[in-house]
């Protein structure tokens, strides 16, 4: 997030796009509600009538994958109504003329046709966002899990910069991270192209610096393979061994039949996880790990806040903290000297040296409330709002984005758009939540939400079994008939391994971020 969670309450307008906030980020939703109680207007763009959408002043039910067109349309309205922040654009940004030219090609009738949202509503949303004193954008995987994911994020940034809604309280471009420490994992370089602190592996100088701290001669400088590329390479025999930590691709990745084929193709598979997940079941070796309550360390949350956690109980059986396993492994490989850590605290001291954003953080300073990066030195109070006076690259760059349709469009054979997501009662692949009796008693099976008119046309009754198929796979599941989803779109939660929505989804990738298009694929729904 460019801004902070509590900061949302100070917004005059909150624009949520692609986030089921009350169900997936309830604590963030509380701040949205606080903003509304303070008089803020709320706009929610989602093809489903989610709980947060019912609270909105304006709900835009756009078709999945049309986000960039919607935002271009809003920007055109803002410019046409002279609501853009000329001073901010002049002093803080570049590329305005180009983007103004691009969005001028998005008149509202055209945008209505692409998105399915009434032109009048798009105009209303644009005016609400553009006229408010401080406007905040919240987004989640509804924006990113597309072949145009990168473009969609750029569109959100464009809208914020156009109206000067960056660097001030109650504003910002705020992605909501879907796991407690996914921000921390990225910060630590669990990505294919960067070392800790987003230092490019291709940057020779940075590589040398980090190699020096780590006590090695050099480090690999080639960009690695992202997860989908990895599965493709494995199935082609180019990857022979795989080591998976804390991830359950056999439920979370698109096109599961292909994932299974890939994981079976490797010669050696290690899975390090708390539970024997669907992925771990395929492994040659499973290393059991400690849970959050059984280890010390830090988590970095969605607002870049680094917080310490403390072991409350000992891990059961042979389970150990991830870092202990890595150290033992390094030792067996003959690199024990480079991994002589006695505690999470000692590791933190090292990562401060490697990660410029964390340089000023000490274990003592993060003990109570944590600190938000960047925190360059020990006197620094942390940063609650990014880009207050300047952007990382100097001027903020407008990236003109043209609308591109999703990789797979509905057609005669597969006439519906399937969009997937999570529900309140389960977490991600269910590896934890489905082992909770209480949560599983709330919802213990998959379902597909379908609009009541669509259901009637197909002769589907509420609760009846339907067969859902795509170009990649098929499954049988229970139909839930509702008016809370637009016609032509169906929704499935992906938590349920025994009826996994990701058997159907497409592994088409965003060309830059290489994120798969989990939010749009074409399916057929038939009465069983």
């Amino acid at each position, binding site marked *: 997030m460019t801004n902070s969670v509590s900061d949302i309450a100070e917004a005059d307008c909150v624009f949520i796009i692609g986030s089921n906030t009350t169900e997936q980020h309830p604590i963030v939703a509380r701040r949205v509600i606080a903003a509304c109680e303070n008089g803020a207007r709320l706009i929610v763009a989602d093809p489903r009538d989610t*709980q947060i959408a*019912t609270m909105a002043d304006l709900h835009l039910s756009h078709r999945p994958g049309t986000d960039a067109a919607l935002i271009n349309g809003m920007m055109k309205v803002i410019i046409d109504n002279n609501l853009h922040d000329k001073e901010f654009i002049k002093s803080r940004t570049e590329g305005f003329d180009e983007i103004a030219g691009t969005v001028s090609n998005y008149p509202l009738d055209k945008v209505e046709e692409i998105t399915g949202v009434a032109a009048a509503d798009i105009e209303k949303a644009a005016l609400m966002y553009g006229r408010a004193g401080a406007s905040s954008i919240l987004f989640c995987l509804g924006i990113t899990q597309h072949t145009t994911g990168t473009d969609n994020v750029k569109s959100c940034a464009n809208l914020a910069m156009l109206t000067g809604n960056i660097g001030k309280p109650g504003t910002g471009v705020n992605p909501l991270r879907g796991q407690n420490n996914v921000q921390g994992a990225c910060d630590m370089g669990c990505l294919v192209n960067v070392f800790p602190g987003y230092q490019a592996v291709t940057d020779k100088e940075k590589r040398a610096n980090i190699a020096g701290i780590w006590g090695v001669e050099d480090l690999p400088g080639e960009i690695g393979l992202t997860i989908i590329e990895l599965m493709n390479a494995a199935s082609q025999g180019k990857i022979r061994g795989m080591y998976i930590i804390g991830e359950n691709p056999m439920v979370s990745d698109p096109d599961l039949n292909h994932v299974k084929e890939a994981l079976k193709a490797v010669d050696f598979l290690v899975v390090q996880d708390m539970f024997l997940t669907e992925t771990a079941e395929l492994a040659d070796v499973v290393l059991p790990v400690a849970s959050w309550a059984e280890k010390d360390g830090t988590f970095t949350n969605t607002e870049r806040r680094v917080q310490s956690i403390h072991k409350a109980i000992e891990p059961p059986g042979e389970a150990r903290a991830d870092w202990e396993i890595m150290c033992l492994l390094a030792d067996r490989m003959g690199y024990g000297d480079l991994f002589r850590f006695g505690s999470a605290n000692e590791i933190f001291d090292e990562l401060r040296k490697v990660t410029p954003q964390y340089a000023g953080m000490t274990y003592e300073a993060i003990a109570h409330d944590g600190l938000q990066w960047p925190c360059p030195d020990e006197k620094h109070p942390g940063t609650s709002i990014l880009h207050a006076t300047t952007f990382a690259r100097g001027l903020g760059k407008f990236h003109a984005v043209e609308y591109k349709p999703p990789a797979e469009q509905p057609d005669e054979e597969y006439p519906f758009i399937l969009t997937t997501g999570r529900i309140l009662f389960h977490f991600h692949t269910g590896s934890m939540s489905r082992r909770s009796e209480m949560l599983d*008693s*709330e*919802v213990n099976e998959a379902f597909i939400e379908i609009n009541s008119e669509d259901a009637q046309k197909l002769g589907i009754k509420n609760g009846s079994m339907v067969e859902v198929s795509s170009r990649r796979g098929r499954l049988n599941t229970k139909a839930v008939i509702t008016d809370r989803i637009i016609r032509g779109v169906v929704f499935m939660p992906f938590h349920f391994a025994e009826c996994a929505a990701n058997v159907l989804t497409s592994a088409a990738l965003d060309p830059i971020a290489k994120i798969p298009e989990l939010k749009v694929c074409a399916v057929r729904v038939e009465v069983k």
Partner: protein
Amino acid sequence: MKGDMYFARSSRQDILERAECGGAVTSLLKFALESKRVDAVLTVEPKDGSRFDGIPVLLTEPARLIETSGALHCAYPNIARFIKEYLDGAFDLKVAVVVKPCDVRAIIELAKRRQINTENLLLIGLNCVGTMSPAVARKMFEDDFGINPDDVIEEDIEDGKLTVRLVDGTENQRDLAELEEKGYGRRDNCRRCEINIPLMADIACGKWGTADKNTTFVEVCSEKGDDLVNEAIKAGCIEVETPDSEAIEIRKEKDKVARELALKWQERDFATFKQMTLDERFDYWSGEFSRCIKCYGCRDECPICYCKDCYLEADRGLVRAGEVPPEIMFPFVRLAHVMDSCVNCGRCQDVCPMGLPLACMTFMLNRELADIFDYEPGMDVNDLPPLRTAFNEELAMEGVELR
């Protein structure tokens, strides 16, 4: 005997120096432990030195007690629930427990439900005019007081002022009413609370009525309390004087002022709802509950919710499984189960991720029921909750049957 009042202070120099108000409470706890009246002491201490992160601690070493002395206004762990869940209701353990009025009232409500054995508890009550949310207090100290919250070593609420003492010895003071107008100050349930002196405990300790900073005003509220205080005096653990009538009057007057202020807050906070018709009220609350995400936080944090097999859970078939927001029966069943017994601890509202004004609603209904049934929850183990108690004469009425 019950009703006896003392000015008390510790006889020990180390306790006098470290503790607040003469350290009478610390010395009494120490005596209770050393004289084997109890097996352990349950109290609250700062976690890792932070006043804003208080945790319950169970101590068996008398020497550790001194570290827990001093009031923490921003720490209010769920003491009643702690005894029930982690000390097995104190059925097999004698414990001295340091309690605020709402803590002891929750303990009494759980005792009525056979979840805690008060026979084994020695309840050391502390006067309380309110606690503050740690997050709100930190922000208030930073933004309004202009001080670093981590520099605070003592807070005090007295005569409508909030005073904080800092590590460098300086003091900082603000008008409490002004702070509360700005949304700072005490938690809103505390503002509405009329019960400042915990006379339902075994002893009630506070500073009201004392003339200096090194004295605690102690009122004996039970035989157990009487035994503790008398024997502690005999053993030379505390020194006492008898408060004069002026001191007693001052204490009474301060209590009255605090109660009147609470009633004003009740009137103010309840006014919006009281002027609604019943239909309007229903619509209002239905609207509020449309934000509920069925996290069960209110139930899990409620000190008096105790059913092992809860009606609200999906497998009971009363509330439809897997629905968000849950149907209106979800909040209503909870309300029906606790509203006659609510001790206004405010926890349901504290934990609600959607910020629903649950404490306000439950306590308002509780006040209405208190009038109807002439019943105050959490006062006496023998007073049973009116909505779950049927008297013989009621059962004898035509058409009344117990299912």
